[in-house]
């Protein structure tokens, strides 16, 4: 049968072959919906009330991305040279994907931490970035020693710092994209002047964590401005209000800062002319908001024990999962189970058993949600306790103060904002591009109406959760 099939495929029309060879259709012009999200985590450490005043210098500079970029064969002197590069790029990509799979399959960090930080939102919107939390904690593990480090490694599911190096590199490289649909991550460590540091650890931060290390007079208004500028620069100014409130207390000796800026357009656009004003059943009573509507989307509908879900694809950077709790259930019920995260990360067995190809009528509110706060208590729930305890915190490998007063963490501040809308839309600029496919419509139709509190997760193409949030009041 094999040979007959091989011959039979030779009768497929040329236009289909040309289409397939061309690959995925390039970006569609003009208007489409957009998602933009930013986050900053700042971890502050102090030793208690010592005055300081110094200048800022660069201790280590973040490594440039080591991901080999795509190149065309005509950029090489010979085919052999191109082939060698192609093989190298392929092998690098395979190693990276294997390490990311290990993180997603071997650790409960993403689901455990998301549950802790999003549960109990009451009537408020709540958002956090799992991947940014992961990277921020990985940096913290690099600077910590003894049980302080071990607790973080345990929480992240890494058996050693060497394993964590491989994994954090892979996660960073998998997510990072500074192209048209950016997902840019930036990390930095700020050292107070007078602090002696281990250069090898600073170099590890620069290489494995893609972090820059600065030294200056922490607590001075000048360094505050420098840090605010760094945060604003790496979040495209979208967290301006929160960032401008970031001031380091005088007693700060170390500050870790980690940011992610993400923006991507929908693959299939919402037509703003189809928007409606309707009621959203918020916990504190109905509110009127703008809903975006899309009819007869052909796609997969997913379900778990307490929710239904759909996934909307984004150009270049993965997708947005929307989880609607079943009637009588709440978002906290969804968060309490790990099903939703396992679906995102691809660790939930055979998709045939929890998804069905259907026709979906989607109604979802436009939203712009943000939250900020201290993650300290949540991290302690995850078992990371020593770094917050002045008597147990161990940062002696990384830094030494002349006074020998122990360094410990005082706070882990986070600010996140996620917008989902049809950015820059004008009806005159809207061009609807009909789908080129003509698949037979599925027999079943489902109305998926997000008119009550729901959970969303933005994930990259590997299944790494970039942002997760609860929308109680769009």
């Amino acid at each position, binding site marked *: 049968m094999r040979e007959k099939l091989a011959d039979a495929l030779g009768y497929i029309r040329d236009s289909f072959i040309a289409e397939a060879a061309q690959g995925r259709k390039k970006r569609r012009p003009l208007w489409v919906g957009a998602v933009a999200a930013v986050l900053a985590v700042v971890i502050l450490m102090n030793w208690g009330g010592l005055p300081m005043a110094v200048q800022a210098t660069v201790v280590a500079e973040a490594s440039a991305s080591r991901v080999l970029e795509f190149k065309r064969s005509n950029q090489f002197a010979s085919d052999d040279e191109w082939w060698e590069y192609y093989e190298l790029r392929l092998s690098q990509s395979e190693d990276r994907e294997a390490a990311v799979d290990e993180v997603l399959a071997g650790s409960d960090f993403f689901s455990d931490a998301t549950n802790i930080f999003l549960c109990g939102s009451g009537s408020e919107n709540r958002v956090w970035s799992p991947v940014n939390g992961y990277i921020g904690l990985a940096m913290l593990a690099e600077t910590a020693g003894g049980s302080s480090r071990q607790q973080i490694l345990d929480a992240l599911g890494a058996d050693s710092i060497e394993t964590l190096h491989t994994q954090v590199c892979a996660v960073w490289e998998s997510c990072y994209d500074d192209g048209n649909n950016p997902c840019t991550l930036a990390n930095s460590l700020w050292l107070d002047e007078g602090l002696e540091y281990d250069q090898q650890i600073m170099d590890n931060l620069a290489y494995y964590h893609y972090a820059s290390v600065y030294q200056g007079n922490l607590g001075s208004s000048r360094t505050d401005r420098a840090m605010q500028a760094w945060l604003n620069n790496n979040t495209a100014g979208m967290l301006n209000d929160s960032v401008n409130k970031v001031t380091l207390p005088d007693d700060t000796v170390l500050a870790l800062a980690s940011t992610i800026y993400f923006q991507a357009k929908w693959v299939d656009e919402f037509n703003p002319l189809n928007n409606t004003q309707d009621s959203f059943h918020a916990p504190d009573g109905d509110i009127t908001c703008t809903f975006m509507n899309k009819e007869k989307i052909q796609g997969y509908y997913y379900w778990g024990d307490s929710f239904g879900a759909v996934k909307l694809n984004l150009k270049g950077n993965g997708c947005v999962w929307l989880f609607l709790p079943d009637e009588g259930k709440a978002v906290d019920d969804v968060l309490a189970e790990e099903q939703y995260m396992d679906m995102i990360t691809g660790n939930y067995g055979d998709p045939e058993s929890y998804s069905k190809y259907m026709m979906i009528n989607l109604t979802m509110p436009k939203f712009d949600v943000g939250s900020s706060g201290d993650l300290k208590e949540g991290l302690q729930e995850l078992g990371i306790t020593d770094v917050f305890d002045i008597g147990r915190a161990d940062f002696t490998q990384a830094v030494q103060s002349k006074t020998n007063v122990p360094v410990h963490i005082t706070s882990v501040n986070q600010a996140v904002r996620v917008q989902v809308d049809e950015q820059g839309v004008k009806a005159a600029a809207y061009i609807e591009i009909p789908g080129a496919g*003509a698949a037979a419509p599925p027999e079943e139709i489902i109305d998926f109406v997000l008119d009550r509190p729901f959970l969303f997760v933005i994930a990259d193409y590997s299944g790494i959760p970039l942002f997760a949030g609860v929308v109680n009041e769009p």
Partner: protein
Amino acid sequence: MEDSKIIGLLFERAENAISALAEKFGRRLRSLALNILGSIRDAEETVNDTYLAVWNAIPPKQPDPLAGFVYQTGRNQALKRLRSNTAQKRNGTYDLSLDELAGCIPGPALEETVEARELGQVIDRFLEGQARENRMIFLRRYWFGDSVRDIARAFGMKENAVSVRLSRIRGQLKDYLIKEGYHDA
């Protein structure tokens, strides 16, 4: 370079027609041949044979789209070489993809009762009814012999999602073949 210009060069018997073909189609041709043959040397020779075959066919042919014709020619050349290399070990990857596809043929007796042309035309009609992305993913796997990993990368999907999608399309193809009367009596 636009297809019409390349065809123009072939009609003029201009020497740079071959380099224009290589520049536009060389990379994918090479990967197609490598997927089928599993040997870089054989793939290189097949790609060169393909350029020669296209040179000989145009004129008089004026294929549109040119890409489809060039890849069809390349695939035929690769299959020809594969079958002539009887002593050579078959390429597992390509055979695996065909075995995968053979699983959705409703009955073994069809091998005897249906001609390749007829079967190909039914599959073509089935693909016409598929969404564009499904059609592309299907052809990338079973026509070009691309690995699931490469397809996942090209389409921004997880490997698991590609495998599931392919499995669904194969299931639909099987249903379609049965509906059209292509099954064992």
